[in-house]
């Protein structure tokens, strides 16, 4: 059994172990790393600033190494290699013999020889420990400078600004990221960094770091200076090749163990991989080439395969984490290559894009994207695969307005050999195979089967496109099965429940499901049962999401909000007074909602029935603010008062709201009624909107606000009230029956084949002949309406559930509130 010793336990060292395990290598493996913990994801090091959670960054825990028979030794530094007798010794004088030695020592931050760099407050940015020291120091500092305006320097600057430090970046070159982007791009990037609050000092050579024991500032060779409390040096990397010098291994001029295409150093028993290896005089400061090198070594150790070789790697990069899109690929400058640059510099929107095209207009040579790097993946692919350019290459970077995704070629134009995930070296073909041959149907499956997207994650949008495209090509209708307990789509479940007259979750699970259910299928079935039978949701309260279970919306701190229904937004003074009194008595925070009613926040679980008792007494009903059900039908004041009003919009809104109150649906439903085209009720921003016209009413459907606002579109114009109701009954019932879980009307409508025209046929012309049935279904639901709160407070069994403890009457003693602006607030979490 060959004995392999790996020096260093960084990202590439881990990847080599993983590959050896995958390839079932029989070698006995010892890994010696100087850092105190197993290898972690250095690429996402900055994430440590957010939560200081080192575990999240871990590539694999110690158990993984143990479980795979790998001897991992941490906190130990290899200090010597004895090539004759083939062993290494560590700083504690332990000795490890090898048949093959792999050097994976990475690199360290390059610290330029500036006077004063040894002072307190000067840091580098490479390890978790570096970050910890920086964060501790940063708490007492108010300003920071970053030396170096490259990829890493900007990332460090973003981290410093997130630490609330006044931050400057000091760069020697006359522009930022001088190796990746050109002058124009640099100017734009500079202004974007300045927008983030980061000062950019260019063309500055630092001559001295000032201060006594602690640094207090920097002096520059042009005579200027900067007062600053701490400095993060990010001026490049130096390969850690110190072991080689003493052992007589060949070391490159600019540092790094010289390796051949098999990753062998000048001693064929010793390999070098990752950032410490110098291939053709080049150090690759990125993780993907390191992974590629690991593959070369793993093939030799596990399969004795010397065919697979390292041939260099593409250095394209997309900057992450800094809040500005920056990418460059191929040769961004083409200084010595004949080419045509095509660029746009959209100063208004802060977008700069440049591509370099060869003289024949056939190939992409490289490019730069700033402010909008959405097309990076596609352009990068075209470059690596030397794909033919479209007839007008400028289309690649200029989006015609309204069109999404500029890069004017489709995913199907990509060859199967195209490398999609560079971290894990996964090709388009690999991904397609996992879909076509192994039946993978989702992103997680692809990640598990191919590892694509598990590194930096930058390729995920493209992986997703390939997935959708391939599934579509295969003619697979992607079945949206609910969860592991029910192999059905929502629509199938709807039919199962209805046809078989299933009345409870337990019954459905017994007959059609498996296992014990989960938080996905339970609320979904709860909603379906309610949509079909309109039975009381509390009868099976434990399958409901907490809001439905307690008929109120949960808030920070575990209190709930109370929203009584105020149909159409119309309320009498007496009822207003009741709300005020109840709020006062239970010390509830009150607020007018965006839905024309009043929300009472901060109710404790045990108080909910008491509060509702008072409200129900005064004639209020549940507002269903907690349910996937009808919320509000907003109204404008309409013809009764408004000088422009054509009809009584308030009256109609109240009528419609009362008709559909309590109606359970795939997502929440909102409506609006406006008295004229001025649209003060914002009806077209709702799932259904009714707007008065000279001749009657216009009915609009499929609108919403939210993150992705949509205006409702006209379903029928100039119709009378009865027809509005008839169409609405049909429309809502059709939606309830056929939509996906948590799909609002707008996306549902968009996905309907045939779109609004089809919908008009079904609803207005009754092309499917189901109009009457839909209306009848709706009638049944309306007939079954009861106010859930009224039922809950009157039923002792249901009421009993509204307590925090089952063995004690007290409120949750850990709840905390504070007072602000004269009302009670929850304390932040």
């Amino acid at each position, binding site marked *: 059994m060959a004995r392999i010793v790996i020096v260093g336990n960084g990202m590439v060292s881990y990847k080599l172990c993983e590959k050896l395990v995958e390839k079932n290598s029989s070698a006995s493996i010892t890994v010696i790393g100087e850092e105190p913990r197993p290898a972690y994801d250095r690429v996402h090091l900055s994430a440590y600033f957010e939560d200081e959670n080192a575990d999240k960054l871990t590539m694999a825990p110690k158990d993984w190494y143990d479980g795979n028979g790998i001897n991992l030794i941490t906190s130990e530094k290899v200090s010597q290699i004895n090539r004759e007798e083939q062993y290494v010794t560590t700083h504690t004088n332990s000795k490890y013999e090898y048949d093959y030695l792999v050097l994976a020592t990475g690199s360290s931050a390059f610290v330029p020889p500036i006077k004063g760099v040894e002072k307190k407050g000067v840091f580098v940015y490479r390890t978790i420990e570096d970050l910890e020291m920086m964060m501790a120091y940063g708490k007492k500092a108010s300003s920071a400078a970053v030396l170096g305006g490259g990829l890493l320097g900007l990332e460090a600057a973003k981290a410093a600004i997130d630490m609330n430090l006044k931050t400057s970046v000091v760069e020697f070159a006359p522009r930022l990221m001088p190796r990746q982007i050109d002058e124009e791009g640099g100017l734009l990037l500079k202004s974007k960094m300045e927008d983030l609050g980061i000062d950019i000092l260019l063309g500055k050579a630092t001559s001295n770091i000032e201060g006594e024991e602690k640094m207090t500032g920097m002096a520059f060779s042009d005579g200027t200076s900067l007062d600053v409390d701490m400095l993060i040096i990010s001026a490049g990397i130096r390969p850690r090749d110190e072991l080689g010098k003493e052992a007589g291994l060949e070391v490159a001029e600019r540092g790094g163990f010289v390796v051949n295409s098999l990753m062998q150093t000048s001693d064929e028993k010793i390999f070098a991989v990752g950032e410490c290896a110098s291939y053709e005089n080049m150090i690759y400061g990125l993780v993907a080439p390191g992974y590629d090198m690991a593959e070369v070594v793993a093939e030799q150790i596990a399969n004795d395969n010397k065919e697979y070789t390292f041939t260099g790697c593409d250095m394209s990069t997309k900057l992450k984490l800094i809040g500005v899109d920056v990418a460059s690929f191929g040769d961004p400058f083409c200084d010595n290559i004949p080419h045509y640059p095509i660029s746009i510099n959209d100063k208004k929107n802060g977008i700069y894009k440049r591509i370099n095209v060869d003289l024949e207009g056939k190939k992409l040579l490289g490019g730069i994207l700033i402010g909008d790097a959405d097309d990076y993946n596609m352009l990068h692919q075209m470059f690596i695969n030397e794909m033919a350019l479209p007839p007008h290459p400028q289309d690649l970077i200029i989006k015609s307005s309204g069109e999404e995704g500029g890069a004017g070629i489709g995913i199907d134009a990509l060859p199967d050999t195209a490398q999609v995930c560079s971290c894990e070296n996964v090709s388009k073909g690999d991904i397609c195979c996992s879909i076509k041959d192994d039946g993978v149907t989702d992103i997680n499956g692809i990640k598990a089967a191919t590892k694509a997207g598990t590194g930096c994650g930058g390729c995920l949008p493209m992986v997703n496109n390939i997935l959708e495209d391939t599934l579509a090509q295969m003619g697979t209708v992607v079945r949206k099965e609910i969860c592991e307990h029910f192999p059905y789509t929502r629509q199938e479940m709807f039919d199962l429940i209805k046809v078989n007259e299933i009345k409870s979750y337990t019954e459905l699970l017994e007959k059609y499901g498996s296992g*014990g*259910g*989960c938080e996905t*299928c*339970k609320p979904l079935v709860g909603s379906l049962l309610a949509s079909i039978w309109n039975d009381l949701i509390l009868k099976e309260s*434990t399958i409901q999401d*907490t809001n439905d279970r307690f008929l109120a919306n*949960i808030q920070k701190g575990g209190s709930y909000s109370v929203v009584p229904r105020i149909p159409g937004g119309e309320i009498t003074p007496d009822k207003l007074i009741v709300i005020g009194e109840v709020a006062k008595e239970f010390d509830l925070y009150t607020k007018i909602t965006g839905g024309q009613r009043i929300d009472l926040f901060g109710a404790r679980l045990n108080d909910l029935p008491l509060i509702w008792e008072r409200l129900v007494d005064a004639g209020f009903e549940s507002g269903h603010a907690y349910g996937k059900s009808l919320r509000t039908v907003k109204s404008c004041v309409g013809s009764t008062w408004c000088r422009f009003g054509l009809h009584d919009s308030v009256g109609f809104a109240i009528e419609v709201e009362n008709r559909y109150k309590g109606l359970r649906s795939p997502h929440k439903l909102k409506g609006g009624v406006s008295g004229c085209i001025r649209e003060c009720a914002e009806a077209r921003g709702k799932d259904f909107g009714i707007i008065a016209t000279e001749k009657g009413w216009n009915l609009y459907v499929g609108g919403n606000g939210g993150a992705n606002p949509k205006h409702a579109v006209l379903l029928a114009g100039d119709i009378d009230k009865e027809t509005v109701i008839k169409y609405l009954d049909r429309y809502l019932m059709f939606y309830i029956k056929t939509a996906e879980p948590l799909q609002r009307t707008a996306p549902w409508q968009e996905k309907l084949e045939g779109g609004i025209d089809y919908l008009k046929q079904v609803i207005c012309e009754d092309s499917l002949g189901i109009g009457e049935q839909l209306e009848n279904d709706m009638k049944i639901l309306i007939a079954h309406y009861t106010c859930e709160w009224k039922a809950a407070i009157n039923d002792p069994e249901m009421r009993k559930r509204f307590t925090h403890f*089952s063995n*004690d009457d007290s409120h949750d003693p850990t709840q905390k509130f504070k007072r602000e602006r004269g009302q009670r607030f929850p304390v932040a979490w």
Partner: protein
Amino acid sequence: MTFEHNTLDQVTTWVKAGHVSDFPEDGGSSILYKDQQIAVFNFTTINKWFATQNLCPHKKQMILARGIIGTQGEEQTPKVACPYHKKTFSLETGENLNGCEDSITTFPIKIEDDTVFVGLVEEK
């Protein structure tokens, strides 16, 4: 809160949590013992009872008893989903099944004559 998976032999006190009917079928409710809040789950479908801490480690909310329970994976691991952000925890080991939160403490539980008891480890 650190992870503990209290086992039967560590139990020093069996605390009476209530009558079985105090705990909704396929659901949970919390109990107060001294200043400890414990979530008790009546998993009727698989005919088992579980007890865990009531505090969700994610945002430190006293809430787990109000979560939806279910099972996950081939092994049918019983679990509870926190109502706030749906982080899920194994009811058996307390392990966070999303793999990013701390584990929760679980307690032994037993039913005698329709009375529910939770086993606690108390410092003497």
